[in-house]
């Protein structure tokens, strides 16, 4: 008897696994309704090729699709491509397109549309630098798209599957549109009904949508997607209090970025489900290594030794954070704790010793921050106090976000540390994040914008080593070098909290709210 139970259980498991492999694709348990989502930031344009803002992506990623995208675990997967092959010499990528895919205007997608979309991206796409190593692209037949490289680039598929500014596929007749003027006609499960900038964007189910039959469920931005709601309305609600009020009254069925202070109250509300999205961004400060005293490694190490990351992150996020070493998150395959010894040292005595070694003469140390992002301001505020405690004359320079970004582009604008957050790039992987540290205009502002040779060598290896393990090792080396040379001070990772009404089913928090495969229970 005792042997039969495990046997039966094992057989049942095997059958379940088998049936799982052959399970029917996702079907909406219930269809209908208008899902109103409260979005925190205004959306100016739905031109996904020409905008890198989260607010654009929130909506546009439900309208558009690309040849490749990322799955739930950030691995590249095919989306509008049925499959792809890489030639043995690594110089040619041949994409077979899914057949019968329709655009929102009713036209069937062919390789001509893919070519026109890539042509447009090469002109106006924000990440068109990824084409630097591409020699040409061709369309041998309506279902095939071929990309030829100038030289092998092992990271090419990783780059073109990025959801940061994806190469979305639009009808060829729309592809001539200048930047920011693209008509939002895509192949996604949702199509545009109304776009009132500053107020709302309304989408409706695209009846002609052809789901990707290669998958059975939604995964990341791809997979088998189905529109269960009749319509989705993204309402721009910039005031956090109004978003909370909307969620409580049921006027909004989903919202992003719930203020931490309201969470206790919302958790008691049985009509609301809180959906925390850990690892939203890495709070970080980068030094200006072109000016004194931050050009001095011993001084930067003194700063690093003085910092208590718990205190900084607690203030920055109202307690909604996790300590995190480096530039990737522990749930990512690319995560490494290389350079761990430099993190969260919080040793004022060591800081003072290093400060004495550095020959610091009491020069002002300017922390450049802004109040548009309260987490950056609060992090700077606490760091300034921690630096003052070890004898560093820290001063805050508070400007608005665009001003601070423009100031940090130049090393001679009177700052020593710049406060920012790495959001989308860490989620995309190590390669996307490490480009912050490479010229032109590397974030740590090396003298003459000439890269540190060690970082340059690691970066080249990250891009060119054919073996993924070698590329990962190069990333670990690069992270260690950045942390040991204090080219950045990553404080920790911040959690963003989304929320939905309790009757909303299938909603899983993701970097961008996905409206497919989500439905109302009643």
């Amino acid at each position, binding site marked *: 008897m005792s042997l039969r139970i495990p046997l039966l259980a094992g057989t049942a498991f095997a059958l379940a696994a088998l049936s799982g492999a052959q399970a029917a694709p996702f079907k909406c348990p219930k269809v209908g309704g208008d899902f109103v989502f409260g979005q925190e930031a*205004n959306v*100016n*344009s739905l*031109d996904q090729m*020409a*905008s*890198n*803002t*989260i607010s654009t992506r929130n909506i546009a990623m439900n309208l558009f699709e690309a040849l490749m995208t990322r799955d739930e675990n950030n691995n590249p997967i095919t989306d509008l491509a049925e499959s792809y092959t890489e030639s043995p010499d690594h110089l040619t990528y041949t994409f077979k397109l899914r057949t019968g895919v329709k655009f929102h205007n009713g036209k069937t997608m062919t390789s001509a549309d893919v070519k026109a979309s890539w042509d447009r991206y090469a002109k*106006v796409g*924000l*990440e*068109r*630098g990824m084409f630097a190593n591409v020699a040409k692209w061709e369309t041998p037949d309506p279902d095939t798209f071929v990309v030829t490289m100038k030289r092998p680039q092992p990271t090419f598929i990783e780059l073109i599957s990025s959801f*940061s500014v994806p190469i979305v596929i639009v009808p060829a007749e729309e592809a001539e549109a*200048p*930047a*920011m*003027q693209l008509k939002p006609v895509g192949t996604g499960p949702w199509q545009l009904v109304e776009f*009132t*900038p*500053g*107020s*709302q964007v309304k989408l409706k189910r695209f009846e002609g949508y052809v789901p990707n039959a290669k998958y059975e469920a939604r995964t990341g931005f791809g997979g088998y997607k189905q529109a269960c709601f009749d319509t989705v309305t993204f*309402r*721009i*609600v*910039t*005031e956090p*209090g*109004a978003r909370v*009020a*909307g969620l*409580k*009254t049921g*006027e*909004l069925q989903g919202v992003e970025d719930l203020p931490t202070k309201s969470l206790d109250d919302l958790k008691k509300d049985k009509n609301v489900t809180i959906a925390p999205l850990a690892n939203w*961004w890495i709070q970080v400060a980068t030094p200006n290594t072109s000016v004194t005293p931050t050009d001095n490694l011993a001084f930067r190490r003194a700063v690093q030794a003085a910092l208590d990351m718990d205190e900084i992150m607690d203030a920055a996020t109202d307690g909604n954070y996790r300590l995190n070493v480096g530039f990737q998150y522990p749930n990512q395959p690319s995560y490494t704790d290389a350079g761990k010894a430099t993190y969260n040292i919080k040793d004022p005595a060591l800081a003072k010793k290093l400060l004495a070694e550095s020959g610091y003469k009491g020069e002002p140390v300017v922390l450049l921050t802004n109040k*548009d*992002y309260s987490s950056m301001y609060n992090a700077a505020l606490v760091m300034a106090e921690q630096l003052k405690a070890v004898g560093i004359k820290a001063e805050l320079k508070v*400007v*608005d*976000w*665009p*001003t*601070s*970004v*423009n100031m940090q*582009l130049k090393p001679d604008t009177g700052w020593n540390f710049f406060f*920012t957050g*790495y*959001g*989308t*790039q860490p989620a995309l992987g190590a390669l996307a994040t490490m*480009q*912050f540290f490479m010229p*032109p*205009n*590397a*974030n740590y502002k090396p003298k003459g914008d000439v890269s540190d040779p060690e970082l340059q060598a690691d970066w080249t290896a990250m891009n060119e080593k054919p073996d993924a393990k070698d590329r990962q090792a190069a990333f670990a080396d690069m992270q260690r070098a950045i942390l040991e040379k204090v080219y950045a001070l990553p404080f920790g990772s911040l959690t963003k909290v989304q929320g939905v009404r309790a009757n909303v089913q299938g909603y899983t928090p993701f970097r961008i709210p996905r409206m497919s495969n989500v439905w109302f229970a009643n």
Partner: protein
Amino acid sequence: MLAVAARRLGSAVPVLLIVSLITFAMMHMIPGDPSTVIGGLSATPAQLAQIRADLGLDEPVLVQLFKWYGGLLHGDLGRSLLMGRDVVAVTLERLPVTVALSLYALVLTLVLGLVFGIVAALRQNSWIDQAAMMLAMLGISLPNFFLGLLGILIFAVHLGWLPTGGYIAFTDDPVGWLRTSTMPAVSLALLQVGLLARITRSTMLEVLRQDYIRTARAKGLPWRLVVIKHALTNALIPITTVVGIIVSLLVSGSVVTETLFSLPGMGQLLTQAVLNRDYPMVQGGLLLTTALLVLINIGVDMCYAVLDPRVRYER
């Protein structure tokens, strides 16, 4: 009077030119540019440089100024850098929202402000006067942002009578418009109600002490007629001046209200444009808004002649 109006319109042209120049200079003097917004939080420095070049922001400021005025001479106010749309078209889309909200708030201001002011003046030093003036002070003292949040909490969350935000155009659904516009209009109007009530009270008190009022009463005219025909009519001149100012304040005050209640009006548009450094949108939008305010001021001036026969412009 038409000739006067035409002359006033003509004199508005240099005002608009100066406004456009100041706006251009100020927008280009403040650091930061739209590349940081288009590029988003995660933009690399290389991407930012690429966006600046794409938008022509790496050209000398003088070149950009000549391009702006060149377009203006052809009636072209440019294209929003972030929305990719014609500035005039975007403005014409948003203006009705602000105009409708301001008109609604103006009606509330006039009705409540005049009634409070007149009643307080007629019952000077009574509890009614004290209560009306206390309400007026409250309206002046409380920021409309706070009033708006209070309104959301009471009327949307607790009572569920009104929505927390959003906007429905009057032409689409008048009842829906009333529901979505009432809280914003009230929070916008309350400050001006206080202002108007206090001005109306003091002006009415001054007029009610005049000899012609005493004469009218001595002649045996009914009190209501004395107040409406003789006192109020004469008090209207200073009140009209204040109403002119109130209209400007309502339009500018809509910035906060529209943001709080997610109304897609000019206030929200221009605030976002300034924060995003959308140069053509700020320059063009402010030019058109200034033109509107100039027109309102000319209209108010013309009202003086209608209200007071002693005012004659054509001499």
